[in-house]
C-alpha cells in the first residue's frame, strides 16, 4: 500500500493491556501479561527476547490469527479482537502479509501460484492475480523462477517467494516471524535488505520477530520482551535515518 508522507506518523497498531493465557488442561500458561504498545504506519519494528517470552504469541495476537484473552488490539483503528472469524480472515486477506521462518509455501503449487493465492482468495480476477503475482515476484527478483515449485528453490528463494506473497495484496502491515531464521547470514542479509527497501519505497509497516540482533539492528525500533511483558524499547536512530 502506498501511503503519503504524513501518514507515516499515524498509529497503525495500538495495543492496550493485551493478555493471552494458554490453558493446557493441567496448567494455565500466561503467555502475554498485559502488553501495551503502539506502532506507527511505515515503521519497522523488531520484537526480540529469549525463547518462550511471548514474541510469536504477540505477533499472532496482533495479526488476528490467535484470539486474545483480554485487552484491546486496534489495527488501523479497528479492534480486531472483537471481530468474528470471517471478518478477521477477510481483513487479513486484504490488509496483511505474512512471512514465516519455514516459508510455509504450498509445495504442490508453483511460485507464482503460491503468490497469487491471497489475491484469488480476496476475489481478485485470475488474470489480474497472475499479473500482480508476477509483478511481486519481479520485485523480489524471482520473475524467472515463477514456474518452479518450492522444492526446486533454495531457502533464500523460497523466503523471497514468501515475501512476494506477503506483498502481493498491497498490505498495510507485514508480519514476519523469524524471517531469516532458516537462512545463512549472506542470504539473511539479502532478505533483510529487501524488506528494508520495501519499507522505504512502499511505506510498509513491518513487525518482525527475531532472535538475531543484526536483523533487529536494521529496524526502526526494537521491543525487548521478557516473560510475556515488554521489558524495554530501544529506538534505533541510525535505522531511522538510514
Amino acid at each position, binding site marked *: 500500500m502506498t501511503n503519503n508522507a504524513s501518514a507515516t506518523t499515524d498509529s497503525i497498531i495500538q495495543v492496550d493491556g493485551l493478555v493471552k493465557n494458554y490453558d493446557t488442561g493441567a496448567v494455565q500458561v500466561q503467555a502475554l501479561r498485559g502488553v501495551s504498545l503502539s506502532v506507527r504506519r511505515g515503521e519497522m519494528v523488531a520484537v526480540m527476547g529469549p525463547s518462550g517470552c511471548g514474541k*510469536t*504469541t504477540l505477533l*499472532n495476537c496482533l*495479526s488476528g*490469527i*490467535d484470539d486474545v484473552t483480554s485487552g484491546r488490539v486496534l489495527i488501523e483503528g479497528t479492534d480486531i479482537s472483537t471481530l468474528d*472469524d*470471517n471478518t478477521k*480472515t*477477510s481483513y*487479513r*486477506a*486484504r490488509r496483511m*502479509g*505474512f512471512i*514465516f521462518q*519455514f516459508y*510455509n*509455501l*504450498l*509445495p*504442490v*503449487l508453483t511460485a507464482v*501460484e503460491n503468490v497469487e*493465492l*491471497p489475491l*484469488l*482468495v*480476496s*476475489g481478485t*480476477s*485470475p*488474470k489480474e492475480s497472475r499479473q500482480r503475482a508476477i509483478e511481486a515476484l519481479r520485485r523480489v527478483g524471482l520473475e524467472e523462477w515463477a514456474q518452479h515449485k518450492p*522444492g526446486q528453490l533454495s531457502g533464500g528463494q523460497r523466503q523471497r517467494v514468501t515475501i512476494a*506473497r506477503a506483498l502481493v*495484496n498491497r498490505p498495510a502491515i507485514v508480519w514476519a*516471524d523469524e524471517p531469516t531464521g532458516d537462512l545463512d547470514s549472506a542470504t539473511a542479509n539479502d532478505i533483510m535488505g529487501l524488506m528494508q527497501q520495501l519499507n522505504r519505497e512502499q511505506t510498509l509497516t513491518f513487525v518482525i520477530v527475531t532472535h538475531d540482533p543484526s536483523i533487529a539492528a536494521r529496524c526502526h525500533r526494537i521491543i525487548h520482551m521478557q516473560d510475556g511483558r515488554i521489558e524495554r524499547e530501544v529506538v534505533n536512530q541510525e535505522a531511522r535515518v538510514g
Partner: protein
Amino acid sequence: MDKLFGIQLNSIMVALLILLAVVFAVIVWIGIRRPLLVRMGLRNAIRRPAQTALIVVGLMLSTLIISAAFSTGDTVGYSITNLVYGSLQGVDYLVGFDREKNGVEREQAYLTTSFLDSVRQRFGNDPDIDGITPLLVEQLPILNESQRLSQPQGAFIGVDPGSVASFHALRDLNDNEVSADALTGNRTYISDRLSSQVNARAGDTLTVFVENKPTTFEVIGVVRDTSITSRQAFDGGSGSEPPGGMIVNLQTAQQILDRSGRVSYVAVSTAGGTRDALALRSDRVEQKLDDFIDANPDSRAKVIASKHDLVSLAEIIGSVFVTFFIVFGLFSIAAGIMLIFLIFIMLAAERRSEMGMARAVGMSRLNLTESFLAEGMAYNIGSAAVGAVLGLGVSALLVFILARTFNDSGFNITFHFNPRAFVIAYSLGVVLTFVTVTFSAYRAANLNIVRAIRDIDEPQMLRGPSRSISSLLLSAVGVLWYLAWLGLVIVLALGAAALFFLGLSTYGLGLLAAGALVGLFWFGARLVNVRSRRSVGQWVLLVLWAVAFNVIALLTWVLLKTRAWAGHYRNAGGWALWMLIGGVVLTYLGGWVWHQQFAYTGGTTLAVLAVAMLAVYFGTPSRPAFTIASIALVWYWLLPLPFSLFTDDPLEHFGPLEGLTKLLGLPQPESDGNIEMFFVSGICITASATLLVIFNADALLAIVSAFGRLLGGIAPALKTAIAYPLASKFRTGITLAMFGLVVFSLVVMATLNSNFTQLFAGDEAKAGFDVMVEGNPSNRIPDLRVALRDAGYQGPALAGVGTQLVASTFGAVVQRDAAPKQDILPISVVGDDDEFLRIAKLPMKYRAAGYETDEAIIQALRNDPTVAVVDDSLISGTNDFGGPASSDQFDLSGVIKAEGFDPVAVTVKNPRGGDDLHLKVIGTLEPQVTGILQQLAGLHVNRQNVDRLFGGGDAETFFVKLEGSPSKQQSVDAANAIESALLERGVQASSIQERIDDSSSQSTAFQYLFEGFMGLGLVVGIAALGVIAFRTVVERRQQIGMLRAIGYSRRLVALSFFFESSFIALAGVAMGLLLGGALSYNLLTSPTFTSGATIEFHFPWIRILVICAIAYGASALMTLIPARAASRVAVAEALRYE
C-alpha cells in the same frame, strides 16, 4: 463343501495355518530380538485412536469379503444337502429301468415284481441293507373338483405299506411318521405341495384321470414332500416347482394303471440313519447292487440314483457358489489389498523424518521394516478376526436375501456356520495383509537419510543414473541377483518346512537333526562375509557348511559376496528390462504354446509398460512415455472398440499382434480365457487408465485457472484440491485405481445383468403369444377353440391359437445322417401347426445357407415338411446347468457353428415303427426364445410330420394370442378363464407375461444380491478416501494454518478438502463408468461371449447412475468430517505445528 478351485479345503486350511504360524513366528522372533521395535510399533498404533480405528476398518475388509464368500457358499451347500436329506430320508439307492440299454419304449419302462422278489431274496438278510421297497410312479392329471383346481402332471405313487415304513419317508407336516397301513382301497395321502396346488386337505376328494377314466380318492392326510411322496430329487420333474404327489396303496395303483406285476423303482435303504447312512461312507452296497443287476440282465434294471451322488452334487453346487462369490469378490479383495498398501504408504510418509532420524542414529533398514511390520501386525491380527466375524454377519444378510429370493421355489435356505471356513478366511486375511505390509514396510524403509530428515522429495525413481546400455545391463544383473536371492530364500524356506515336518514325524529326534542342519546353514552363511581373520573353528565350520550344502552353499556364497555390488547397480531400469523379457515370453507362451489368454494379454501389458519405463530410464519425460503407453494399453484392452462401432468384423482383425503376425506370415496366436479374464482385464484396464489420468490431470488445473472467474470464490479451493492429489501421484493413483476398479466391476456387472434380463424377459421371450395352455396327455384336446366354445369360455377374446404337438423323449429318436450309427438319441419333436407358425415371432440365431431372413425359415417350415429348426440348447453343447452336454443328449454344437451353415440332414424315427422322417435342419432359435417358454425346446417340424409318424404325439401345447395389446392382467384373466373352462380336461394355462415377470423378479433379486456383494468393494474405496482425508488434515496442518493466515476462510479450507476427495472419487467414478461401459459393450456384442446370441446393447443408465450416486455420495459423506476438522484447525497452533 469340500473343495475350492479343485483343491481340498482341508489342504487349503492346513497350508494357510502353516503360513499363519510362520507369520506369528516372525512377529515373535522380532519381539524377542528387538522388543524396542515392537514397542515402537505398538505405541504408534495407539497414538491416534481415530486413525487406528480407520486403519483397522481398512485392513479387515478383505477378510470380511473372503469370510462372507465362504460362509455364503457353505450355507448354500448345506441348505442343498439338507434338501437332499429331507427329500431322500431313508432312500439311499434307487433302482429303476435302464432306458439307455433297453430303449425308450414307454410301455415297457418298468421293473417286474419278480425282480423285486429276487432283490428281496438276495438282500433281505444283508446286514448292510435295512430296507427294500417298490414304488410305482405315473404322471397323471389330478383334480380337486370342489375347488375347480387341477395339477395336470401330478405324481401318482403306489407304495407298499409293508416295507415303506423302514424308509421313514411318510411324515406329516409336524415331522411325525404316519402309517402306510392306512392306505386301503381308494384312500390317499397327498404331499404338501399337491395340497397347495389343488387346495386339498384331509377329508377332501380328488379325482385322477387314467386314459380319460376318472377315479376318486379320499384324502386321509397331508404328508411332507419327499422322494417317496412326490416328484423330486431322483426324477426331478420340470419347471420351477415340481408337481406334488398322491400316495396310494401299490396294489390299488397297479390296478388303476393296469400295471399288474410292474413297479417303477426299487428303493434301497442302507444301515444307519438318514445322515449317517452306510451309503454315504462306502460304495460297498452299490457295488453289490451292480453285481446283482449284472448277474440278472433280464431285469433291465440299473442303479439310477444314489444319496451319496446327490449329496456330493449338493456340495459341488456349494463350492460353485463360493467360487462365484470369491471370483466376483476379487475386485473388492484387490481394492482391500491396495488400501492396506496405501495405509502403510501414508504412515511411512507421515513418519519419514522420524525414520530418517532413526536411520541416522543407527537403525538398519531391516529394523525399520521390523518396526513397521510389528505395527502392521498389531492392526492386522485383531482386524482380521473382526473382519472374519463381520463377514459372517454379511453372509447372514446375503443368506436372508437369498432365502427370500428362493422362498417361492420351496428351497429353504438356512444360515450355516462352518468353523473351517472361518479359520480359512481369518488365516487368509492375516497372511494377505502380512505380505502386503511386509512389501510396504520394505519399500518405506528404503529411504535416503538426508532427504528423509530434511523432507526433500525423492528423485525420479525411473530415471537411469547414466542412461547407457551398459548401466542398464548391469542393473539387470543386479535385479537378477535379487531374483536369485528370492528364489534361494523360497527354496530354503521350503526345505526348512520339509525338515520340520520330517522332524515331527520322527518324534523329536528328527527335529534335533533338522535344527542342527538349519543352524549349520545359518552360522555357515554368516561366516562368508566375516571381515576379520577367521579362526580355525570358523574355517572348519565353513568347510563343513560348504560340504553339507554344496550347490546351495556355492550359490549362497556367490550371492553374499556380490550383495553390495548388486545393490549398487540395481535400479528401476533393470526391473523394466526383466519386465520386458518376461512380458514377451509370457505373450509368446500364452498365444502360441499354452493358448492361455491370461498369459497372452498379461504379457503384452507387462511388455508395453516396460517399454515406457525404459523410455523414462533413457531420459524421456515420464508424462509422454506413460501417456502413450497407457493410451496404447487402454486401447488394447478395449479392442475391438472403437472399430466395432463402424464395422461388424470380429475382434481378431484388429488385434495389433494378430495383424503383425499376419503381415509377417507367421502363425496366428490363439488363446482362450475363462471368468478370471474379467478380473484380469479389470485390473489391467483400470491400471492403464489410472496412469493416463494421473499423468495428464494437470490439464484440469489449467481449466480451473482458465475458468477461475466463472468459479468465483471457490476457484482457490478447487486449485489446491486438484494440485495436492496431483503432487502425490502414487498415492492418488492407488486410490483412483481402487475406486475406479470397484465402480468398473459394478458397472460391468449391472450392465451384463440388465442386458441379459432384458434379453430373456423382453418381447422376444413371449414368442408373439400371450397365454400358454398345456394339454393333458390323458385327455387330449384336438382343437382348443372348439373345446373352449363347448365349455362356455367367457374370457378375453382370442385372436389366434397356435398348436404344437409334442412327441416326447419317450417316443422319438433322432440321428444325424453324417454321424456314426450309434448316435441315435432321444429328442423332443415339436410339430408346429400353420397358425402357430403364422403368429409366432421366432428370431433365429443362425440361418442355413440360402435362407436370408428369419421369415424365410418360418415360411419354409410352414410349407416344406422336410425342414426343421432346433432350439439353441441343441447347438450350445451344454446341459441345463451350463456344464458340458452329456453323451446321451442330442447335440449339433460341433456341426452348426455360425451363420450360413450347410443344412444338416437328420433322420427322426419312431421306435414303435413307421416311416422315418428325413429332415434338413435349416435354422436355430435364439436362446431367449426358450428362456421362459421351455416348451419351445426341441426339434421343430411341420405339424403333419408329428401327425404322420407319431399319431399326433403325446400331448399338445396351445399358444394363444389375445385380441389387441392385452395387459398382463388381461392375459392372467384369460389363462384363468381357460383353465376354469377346461377344468375337467386337466389343462394348465398360464399368462406368459406373468411367467416372464416371475422369472425376471427372481433373477433380478439374485443380480442385486451379487451387485450388493461386489459393492462391498465400494466400502473399501470409501474407507480409502476417508483414510486419505484424515491423514491429509494431520499432514497439512501447518499449511492449513498458513492458508488461514493469508485469508482462506474456514469454509474455503473445508471446501478445498472436500473438493480434493471429490476430485478423486469423481475421477474414479468417471473412469469406472467409461471403462465398464466400454467393456460391457465389447462383451455383449461379442458372439463368443453371448454364445452367438444377438443382443441389442443398452446401457442401464438409471441403475448405473444409482451406483455412481451411492459411490460418490458415500465418499462425500466420509470426507465431511475431516474437511470440517481441517476448517477448525487453530491457526496459531497450526503454524507452530511440526
